[in-house]
């Protein structure tokens, strides 16, 4: 990295953190810390919601997924706008009416304390682990490629987030996220323009899309119903809807963002803003991955994108085998490039026969490259048995570091770190709030005054921050980072959503049947995760359906369960 890159990177991150601390220096009450001053307007809420969801993983994994697998991942978000409408119409008015600080507070008003504590605990387990991954994901990749110390990267990233989150609480998180989201959106647009500009002169955007389509990368929508297919229209519109409903409607890291709104209308508009913009934003990030894929049709990609691991494998006894594969790789690349050039010429000339021949040749040479890449991974596994072979998370950042001009490298790294900080801050803020409001103040110190509550909130935020950094330090690289977070979420979210749906819509079901149903459903989902091949998005549907079905059945079997508070009954 050049001095300009360091200036852009450090300047952007430092400015946002200092701005957050300065802007919220007057936060001195627990109410202000936990929910801001209830004065947020919809643009801030909308950007804050988007920034919370857009973690660094989004920018590391998603373009890599498009490079390897095409654009089908966008279908994962098809349920999101529907969820935004349901949450705006049903959830938000109830939270406002009951004036709650956390989503789980509502469950006690509707059911009983044990259901509230169960939901809060499930949230803290899932989100506590996810917060560690939010820090670890960018740290492992950046430290590997840049030669930074992993522990130091974890520590610096975690400490900066802890400082401004503890300083200003929910308000600091929302204010910094507004800046972070602007950096993120600006960075995405600049990256798309620069990558398109780096394509060969005779490859227009339309031709680039055709080339990507010829190799199966333009697979945005798939209507074929298949339970084992992670991303198709049906899993997105059903599983994605359940996941989004649970995440945005019952996960405190999101609920806290819109509870600080000035009014119901501002909160609703912020959510609907997210419903309108999220899919186009994900589409653009995936399309950036596709453009990187097309770029590497004309520029030789590495046989393995995690360069330090590749170099380490070369230093073992498998070095000659890897070098031989790299020679094959070079020849296969040249053959594929020639076919890509031929297809480009055929597309420009409108020659259908030449186009069909070049398309076939391109697909054959691409298959040859895939085979060599698979072989190279097998040799690396032999050389370094503990090495992580999934290198798709390294594709985009490797491209940025090697091919973007000075200044933009710093900007794109600032985008990745801003995203990491924005999602981690929301998570720590929510974990701290839930710990205090739903457990500490509810079970241990119900008589705590405002100053004590504020101090406890800050200490719990520091505690969760330290735990996240510790988890990030000791975590091992998992299969695919964004999938790891989504899988983790899907295991818990379905059950939490089921509890809330029973609360909102099944007025006659009481606390004890709901609590028992949630415990059984959670056990079943965990068992299915370890023993079945079901796509993870379906865990949301299964967990939620089990809670609703079992709660209805147990309500009949178990007479006189918990109480149903009149305030929480209406939906």
């Amino acid at each position, binding site marked *: 990295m050049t001095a300009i890159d360091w200036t852009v990177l450090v300047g952007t991150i430092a400015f946002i953190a200092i701005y957050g601390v300065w802007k919220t220096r007057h936060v001195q009450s627990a109410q202000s810390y936990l929910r801001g001053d*209830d004065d947020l307007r919809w643009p801030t809420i909308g950007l804050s919601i988007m920034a919370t969801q857009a973690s660094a993983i989004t920018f590391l994994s998603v373009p890599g997924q498009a490079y390897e697998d095409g654009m089908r991942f*966008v279908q994962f978000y*098809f349920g999101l*706008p*529907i969820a*935004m*409408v349901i949450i*705006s*119409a049903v959830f938000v*008015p109830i939270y*406002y*009416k*009951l*004036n709650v600080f956390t989503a789980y507070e509502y469950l006690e008003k509707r059911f009983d304390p044990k259901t509230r504590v169960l939901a809060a605990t499930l949230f803290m387990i899932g989100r506590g682990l996810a917060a560690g991954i939010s820090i670890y994901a960018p740290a492992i990749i950046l430290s590997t490629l840049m030669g930074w110390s992993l522990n130091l990267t974890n520590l610096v990233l975690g400490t900066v987030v802890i400082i401004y989150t503890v300083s200003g609480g929910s308000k600091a998180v929302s204010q910094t996220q507004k800046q972070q989201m602007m950096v993120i959106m600006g960075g995405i647009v600049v990256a798309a323009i620069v990558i398109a500009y780096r394509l060969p002169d005779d490859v227009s955007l339309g031709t680039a*899309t*055709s080339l*990507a*389509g010829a190799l*199966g990368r*333009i*697979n*945005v*929508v*798939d*209507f074929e119903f298949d339970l084992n297919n992670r991303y198709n*229209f049906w899993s997105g519109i059903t599983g994605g809807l359940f996941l989004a409903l649970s995440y945005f409607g019952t996960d405190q890291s999101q609920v806290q963002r819109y509870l600080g709104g*000035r*009014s*119901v*209308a501002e909160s*609703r*508009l912020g959510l*609907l803003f997210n*419903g*309108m913009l999220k*899919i*186009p934003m994900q*589409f653009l990030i995936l399309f950036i991955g596709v453009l990187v894929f097309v770029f590497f049709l004309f520029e030789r990609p590495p046989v393995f994108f995690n360069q330090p691991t590749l170099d380490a494998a070369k230093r073992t006894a498998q070095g000659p085998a890897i070098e031989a594969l790299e020679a094959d790789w070079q020849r296969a690349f040249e053959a594929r490039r020639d076919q890509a050039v031929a297809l480009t010429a055929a597309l420009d000339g409108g020659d259908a026969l030449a186009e069909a021949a070049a398309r076939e040749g391109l697909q054959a040479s691409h298959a040859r490259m895939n085979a060599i890449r698979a072989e190279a991974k097998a040799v690396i596994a032999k050389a370094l048995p503990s090495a992580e072979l999934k290198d798709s998370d390294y594709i985009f950042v490797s491209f940025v570091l090697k091919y973007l001009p000075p200044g933009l490298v710093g900007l794109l790294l600032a985008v990745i770190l801003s995203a990491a900080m924005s999602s981690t801050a929301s998570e720590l803020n929510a974990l701290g709030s839930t710990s205090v409001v739903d457990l500490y103040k509810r079970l241990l110190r119900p008589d705590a005054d405002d100053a004590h509550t504020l101090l406890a909130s800050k200490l719990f935020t520091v505690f969760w921050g330290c735990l996240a950094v510790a988890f990030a330090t000791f975590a091992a690289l998992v299969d695919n980072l964004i999938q790891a977070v989504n899988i983790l979420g899907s295991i818990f979210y379905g059950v939490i959503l089921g509890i809330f749906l029973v609360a909102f819509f099944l007025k006659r079901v009481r606390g004890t049947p709901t609590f028992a149903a949630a415990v059984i459903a959670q056990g079943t989902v965990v068992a299915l995760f370890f023993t079945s091949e079901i796509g993870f998005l379906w865990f949301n549907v299964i967990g939620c359906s089990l809670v609703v079905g079992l709660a209805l059945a147990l309500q009949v079997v178990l007479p006189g369960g918990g109480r149903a508070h009149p*305030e929480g009954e209406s939906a």
Partner: protein
Amino acid sequence: MPPPVKPAPVKPSPPGRGDLDAPPPLLGRWRNLYLLVLGTLGALVLAFWLFTRAYS
């Protein structure tokens, strides 16, 4: 006549927040805004499907 006694401050309860039925700033009713969001989703899915068909 005894001097008026200032009533003790009453803790607000239950503290609901703001007007729950305030209309949106555009399109008149919330239902219309929800239909706009869902319509945009439908339009995006259709556009993506056409995009997939055109380039796959």
